């Protein structure tokens, strides 16, 4: 069923090198990736595997050393600020730490108003903008009037992360990149966050790229899984293929190292 969908994003031979001489590090090493409309994929890797660098490459926040990124079949061109903004209308992100995602000197309304301006509705009367913001907040079951002209430090982690999703609701991009968005959130509010994202996927066909170290989460939420280690994709395929019967030794060891509760967790294979 994925096949007849449009292809949103693909990367060919994507590479990123930092530093030179003594401090030269190869963060992303010739990575290939395809993302279809409405598809949820996960990039799973330990810290230092290069998954965050890959995320920044896909987002266009940093430029690749080698390889190309195609958006909707055409090669991506981010030479001018106008082109970059046009690209960012279609691809957005939510980051790991809600507390550091907000500018502490601005009220949280600024975050939502930025999105409205970026959508091109900047000149709408303020009342209409408030209406939009109320709709977005209700989507993430927050009440706008409880939120408005508050400063970030007056909100809880869960509320802030949900406001980030409200932001995505306003921009309704084609692709959302979620970088470790649940690792700072308590388990019991994790489910609500995931449901909201999947809801957006069903409503507007938004495709999601999950960046995570939590293999359980990847298995639970995504259609395709890419296992990443030292900048390279070690294995990729559907969630059941990769996680339930992995072929590569690295993936096998990775899956066996995760504690299980239904099957026996074999501690001898250290």
């Amino acid at each position, binding site marked *: 069923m994925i096949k007849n969908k449009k292809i949103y994003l693909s990367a060919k031979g994507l590479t990123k090198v930092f530093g030179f001489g003594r401090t030269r590090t190869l963060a992303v090493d010739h990575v290939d990736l395809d993302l279809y409309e409405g598809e949820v994929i996960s990039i799973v890797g330990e810290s230092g595997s290069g998954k965050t660098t890959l995320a920044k490459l896909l987002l266009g*926040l940093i430029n690749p050393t080698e390889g190309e990124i195609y958006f909707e079949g055409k090669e991506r061109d981010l030479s001018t600020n106008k082109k970059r903004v046009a690209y*960012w209308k279609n691809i957005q992100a939510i980051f790991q730490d809600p507390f*550091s995602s907000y500018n502490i000197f601005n009220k949280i309304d600024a975050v939502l108003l*930025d999105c409205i301006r*970026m959508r091109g509705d900047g000149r709408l009367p303020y009342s209409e903008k408030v209406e939009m913001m109320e709709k977005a907040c209700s989507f993430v079951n927050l009440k706008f009037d409880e939120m408005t002209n508050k400063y970030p430090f007056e909100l809880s982690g869960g509320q802030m992360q949900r406001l980030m999703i409200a932001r995505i609701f306003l921009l309704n991009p084609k692709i959302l990149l979620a970088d470790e968005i649940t690792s700072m959130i308590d388990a019991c509010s994790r489910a609500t966050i995931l449901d909201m994202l999947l809801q957006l996927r069903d409503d507007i066909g938004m495709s999601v790229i999950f960046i995570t170290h939590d293999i359980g989460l990847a298995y639970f939420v995504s259609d395709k899984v890419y296992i990443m280690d030292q900048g390279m994709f070690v294995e990729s395929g559907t969630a059941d293929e990769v996680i339930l019967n992995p072929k590569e030794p690295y993936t096998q060891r990775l899956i066996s190292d995760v504690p299980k509760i239904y099957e026996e967790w074999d501690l001898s294979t250290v």
Partner: protein
Amino acid sequence: MKHTLGQIFRSPKFLVGFVIFMAILLLVIIYPLFVTDNPLGIIGQGTFFEPGIYVNVYDSLRSPQYILNLDNAAINRIASRLGDQERQDMKEWLIEYGVPEDEIDIDDTESLMELWVNNYDSTIVVPGMTAAKRKYYVRLDASLEGILATEGFHISVRNEETGDLDEVGYVNQKDYVNVNQVANVRILPLGTDNFGRDMLTELVAAIGVSLKIGLVAGLIATMIGLSLGLLAGYIGGWLDDIIMFITNLFTVIPSFVLLILISYSIGQEQRGAITIAAVIGLTSWVWTTRAVRAQVISLRNRDHVNLSKLSGHSVLHIIVADILPYIASYVFMALILQISSGILAEAGLSILGLGPKTTEVPTLGLMMNWAMIYSAHIMGKWWAYFPVIVAIALVSFSLNLMNTGLDQVFNPALRD
């Protein structure tokens, strides 16, 4: 924002520093409103007049006289002429002469004078006393001669035609004048300096100028530091390497030596106060650049900056809205330190004679320099240099205290 302001004004260190600094600032602003004469105006003929109230003798003779019967008036009059040294010498002579020591009490002026008058005779040759010593005693005896006299002074005026002196008035020992009624009275709380200028007025003006120099130097250094730090930190790459190379160069070359070289090569004529401030500013931006760069680098890939990019903001907007507010507190603290070091640098330079031109404007450094050249400190003229040191110390102490207070507000780990 209100919340942090509240916190700032609750930190004791900041408050003390702020109060001292404001007091100095107010002094510099308000004092010239009352005392309008030129700080470099020479009013005293002669060097280093002691602090005190200077009453015009001529006018006091003209002003109304009042009779006051004060019992220790005579003793005060003698005491003011008999220093400890003279009392010691008198005691010595009397012992030599044969008066038993326990009878002599040099603190009781009256009994000492009586013994002296009854026993001293310049003709007696005391064994073992040099000729110079004997002449000294003769002079001492003569100077005491008039003290006990009870009659007053006759005041006379030379008559143009006859050429002789007509008596105009008589002043006896109990006549007093009311200072407020004397036409010309000048209070010199800090006396005068070696040129004869009123120290207090000069000091206040100097503090004002030094503050201006510190402010200009501080602003220049902080602006350079901020812009270079932002460029190096945010844009990075080869630009960062060049800026850091220059910064490292300036870190190693001692800024004070650089100051000497530059201000020296400007030459005496162009060295006005503001040029010196500019030179100090141009050689002391290194610390701020380094610190701002470090902070900007850590901010550059923070999530809120990336999100701001993703929300379509321009680089300029990101720098102004997302980077600057985060480092504003640090930059302000750096400014305070730069001002304080600017003032100290100017003072240091002036001591070496490389400070601003002397004729136009007094600065704290210049006043120190003049005091040193005319060795006020060796001759014990404390009012020529000590108040200047205290002024410099107070200004930089208050600035630094404010900085430490802010430091504790902005990084809680340092809170004691």
